[in-house]
């Protein structure tokens, strides 16, 4: 069953330097209980894609297409209806938990907010629920720590609290934006373990936005590789790693320390000056004249494996 379906999603806004095309014709599906990873370099529009689902982008940003959640187009909902989705149906876990938590409110207050709002729990019940949640994300001494402030938490503990905040209403979908970025490696591993476990226990679907292939490999069922604003390859995790098709995906994998640490030549284009045709052609060693003029379409190359490249025509 498809939980979230994104159809022809376009997100763009105007900046001083010109129009920023952050998301271009993205189509994606997330099934119930599935984890989909969006992989891409910094600045490829993956965070904007995540924020556009919850409609958290600023008002001057244009969002076109359809975002179907349980069959309903989120882009057509009123602001009030949308508020009932946020935190309750779809929750978001942000990167950098220090800046994403309010410094002047206690962790307990912040974690409790979604249940107080959506399940109308009173203070006492909400607090019990928060303690239970903090315990389930393995925060030691939860009944003491609910009264502490974010700055009194370590980085890993803060991210655990963020996860608790996201999961407390038992949403159907979690959007996790770089949940392990900025944490040290051992803490990263613990957070990944924890997320794996809570996802399995709750049956929650997740859209994981990351540039960290290791984290994605651990958590995802399917992966979508994003290159300035569009999906260039979509496959299950095994195929992405074992049988990558798109030259960008291959380059991305080869740049991993375990696979030779070879960088992709050139730099990724800004979202303002996106090349014509295939967006990867200036950096691609297989590029032909056709790649410069024509935009390739998604092509099926295997069971649930799609790629946007003329090499497979």
């Amino acid at each position, binding site marked *: 069953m498809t939980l979230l379906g994104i159809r022809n999603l376009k997100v763009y806004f105007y900046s001083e330097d010109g129009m920023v095309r952050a998301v271009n014709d993205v189509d994606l599906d997330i099934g119930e209980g599935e984890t989909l990873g969006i992989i891409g370099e910094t600045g490829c529009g993956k965070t904007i894609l995540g*924020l556009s689902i*919850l409609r*958290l982008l600023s008002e001057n940003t244009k969002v076109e297409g359809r975002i179907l959640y349980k069959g309903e187009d989120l882009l057509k909902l009123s602001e009030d209806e949308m*508020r*009932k*989705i*946020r*935190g*309750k149906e779809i*929750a*978001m876990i*942000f990167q*950098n938990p220090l*800046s*994403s*938590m*309010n*410094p*002047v*409110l206690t962790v307990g207050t*912040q974690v409790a*907010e*979604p249940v107080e*709002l*959506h399940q109308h729990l009173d203070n006492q019940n909400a607090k019990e629920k928060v303690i239970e949640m903090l315990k389930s994300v393995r925060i030691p001494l939860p009944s003491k720590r609910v009264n502490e*402030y974010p*700055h009194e938490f370590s980085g890993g503990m803060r991210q655990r609290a963020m996860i608790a*905040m996201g999961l407390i209403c038992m949403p159907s979908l979690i959007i996790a934006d770089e949940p392990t970025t900025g944490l040290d490696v051992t803490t990263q591993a613990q957070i990944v373990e924890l997320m794996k476990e809570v996802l399995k226990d709750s049956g929650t679907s997740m859209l994981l936005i990351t540039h960290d292939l290791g984290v994605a490999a651990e958590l995802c069922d399917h992966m979508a590789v994003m290159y300035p604003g569009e999906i260039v390859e979509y496959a299950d995790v095994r195929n992405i790693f074992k049988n990558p098709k798109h030259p960008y995906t291959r380059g991305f994998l080869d740049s991993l320390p375990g696979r030779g640490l070879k960088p992709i030549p050139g730099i990724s284009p800004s979202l303002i000056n996106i090349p014509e045709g295939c967006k990867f052609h200036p950096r691609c060693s297989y590029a032909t004249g056709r790649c410069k003029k024509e935009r390739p379409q998604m092509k099926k190359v295997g069971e649930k494996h799609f790629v946007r490249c003329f090499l497979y025509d």
Partner: protein
Amino acid sequence: MLTFILKRMCLMFIVILGVTMMTFLIMHFTPGDPAEMIAMARYGVDDLTQEDIEWIRVQEGLDAPLHIQYIKWLNHAIHGDLGCSLINGQPVLSEILVRFPATIKLAAVSMLVALIIAIPVGIISATRQYSLTDNVSMMGAMLGVSMPNFWLGLLLILLFSVHLGWFPVCGYGGFEYIILPALTLGTGMAAITTRLTRSSMLEVLRQDYIRTARAKGLSEKVVISKHALKNALIPIVTVIGMQFGRVLEGAVIIETIFAWPGIGKLLVDSIYARDFAMIQGGVLFVAVIFVIVNLVVDISYTYLDPRIRYEGVK
């Protein structure tokens, strides 16, 4: 917290010492022979003799070198004795304590006026940046900042007292007397505080935790009042502490315009009469109040921002 307060008290003492020294020096370098001025004030200009002037000079210790005069005064002040008025012989301290409530009343009501205007307007401006409301209130704030408050005071008297007759022109009494002076003092402060509230709020609204709050499904009202306001208040409270100093300073002029019997008016009258003891005592008193208000502001940070904890205490 106690160590912090004690440390601050020591610093306060140094600040206050500096203030008294400066006042003392400035007073003695103002043109005009103080003994002569005092003699004129006491006996009138007509039958003033050189002997009278010299007698006053010796009597009031004005013949001693400056530093001796200062140390003598300081010694008395530390023992709680601010001396007596050189003009009418009344004890300085009791005179100040009589006048003090009027000034505090004026200052408090002015600050209240300022905050009641500034915080809501600043918040609305920030949440509707570049809207008509925002532009109008920022223009109003600009006007408020650039208007000298003695001039605004005179305009208000002209409009509301002389033409409309709604409020008394000046004087001290019931509620109707305080409105115009408080409005005069409050608008200048409101203007600065509105701009600050707006910019502080805009800064806070850009923060990641505001996005987190929205992602929970909280309404904009809750996001602003619960998540943004407390963060935005931190710089505002700092400025309110300093603004209090401006209110005391502004009170000197406003109390004179509105014949408000506070410390400000007392100071102005004393300066005209070269009543050194009264000036020195009055300035000391105002400085102490200002320093205490700022200490209170610093302590209130700990309640607003849990990240601030003063040495030794969690």
